């Protein structure tokens, strides 16, 4: 205490460190979406929500592009996880879209940005139809 009185700059340092420690969980909460998706992605709505035709197209796209790793029944194969887990079911459509777009290149999930965004949303619609619409 006497050190803080003697050296006022110590008070500034302590306040700054305390503020940083307090801010970290706030920032982490803002970015800790499904698989690292930013919080803003949760606000994005699926333009094809509950659209049966879109889901059918998404089923075809899933079969062509995703099933070799995630299984024809979304059960997961090898290191690729099942897509019927609680975390996937709990993800918002926007977060799923973000993850399909960006992937996780370090963990073997490719980016699917080469598919038009409409097709990526079709895949999201298909996944939602399998896991129950949100």
């Amino acid at each position, binding site marked *: 205490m006497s050190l803080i009185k003697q050296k006022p700059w110590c008070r500034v340092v302590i306040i700054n460190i305390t503020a940083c420690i307090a801010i970290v969980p706030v920032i982490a909460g803002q970015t800790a979406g499904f698989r690292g998706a930013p919080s803003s992605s949760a606000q994005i709505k699926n333009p094809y929500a509950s659209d049966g035709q879109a889901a059918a197209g998404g089923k*075809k796209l899933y079969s062509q592009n995703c099933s070799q790793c995630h299984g024809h029944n979304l059960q997961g194969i090898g290191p690729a996880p099942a897509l019927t887990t609680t975390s996937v079911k709990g993800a918002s459509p926007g977060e799923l879209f973000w993850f399909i777009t960006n992937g996780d290149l*370090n*963990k073997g999930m490719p980016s699917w940005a*080469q598919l038009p965004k409409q097709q990526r949303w*079709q895949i999201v619609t298909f996944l939602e139809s399998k896991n129950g619409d949100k």
Partner: protein
Amino acid sequence: MSKLPPIFMKASLGCLLLVTSACGAGERPYFVAYDQTMEEPGNLEIEAKGLTASPQGGNGFLSGVTEFEYGAKGWWTTEFYLDGQTTANESTIFTGFRWENRLRLLMREHKINPVLYVEYEDLSGANKSLLEVVGFDSQYDALVPNREANEEREREIETRLILSSNLNGWNISENFIAEKNLFGKPWEFGYAVAVSRPLSLLASADECIFCRENFQAGVEGYGGLGTANEFTVHGTSQYVAPVISWQVREAVFKISPTFGLTDASYRAMLRFGISYEISGFTRMLRKAFH
């Protein structure tokens, strides 16, 4: 009755797995330019590409390249090429090999996605695949007979900075090429730019061969930019090429009539290719030979 040797059975099983387990995934129709798409980890894509052209006053030729592209990581794709060509009234020859590596520099999608490309080329002077156009490459290079050109060995490092964007279904890609001969010749420069789009942005619900979403169309432009001693477009080859591809389940077919824009360019060329992607190749190999 004699039994087939085990290695034959395993090889046959491996081939069967290859045929039944392939899938395609939004291949661009480009022949020269690259976009930011990497091969999916563990997948192997085999592609055969051809080019036919005829230099003014020379013999027509058909060059062929076989490519083996492997997804080593989500951010690293590696590819091995075998090149050859056949020239009318001359010979058919193997002209060398290449080893290419592409590295995603950023792990997330951005408005512009950079990819670093580094390739080692060990090719003879008779190589005519024109997978890139740099420096003062011209149609007149093909006038040298195969028996002379094939004696010359060119070992080079090709580097590219690939910049690629996806916007409203369109892909726009730019490649800046710098190539260095390892035996002292100056740096050679070139470029490739391309734009393409699927004919439909939505996938239809039906399984179909001629669905519009199975087709992609676009245009490529590429050419030389001179050397470190003379950075210029004068006296270089420049090309513009419409491109189109058609994905049919396991295979992608693509074709590109190409038009030369300068005196140094071939007046016209025709490129064509077919690729076949084998998903989970690494996993299948482990199962087949375990």
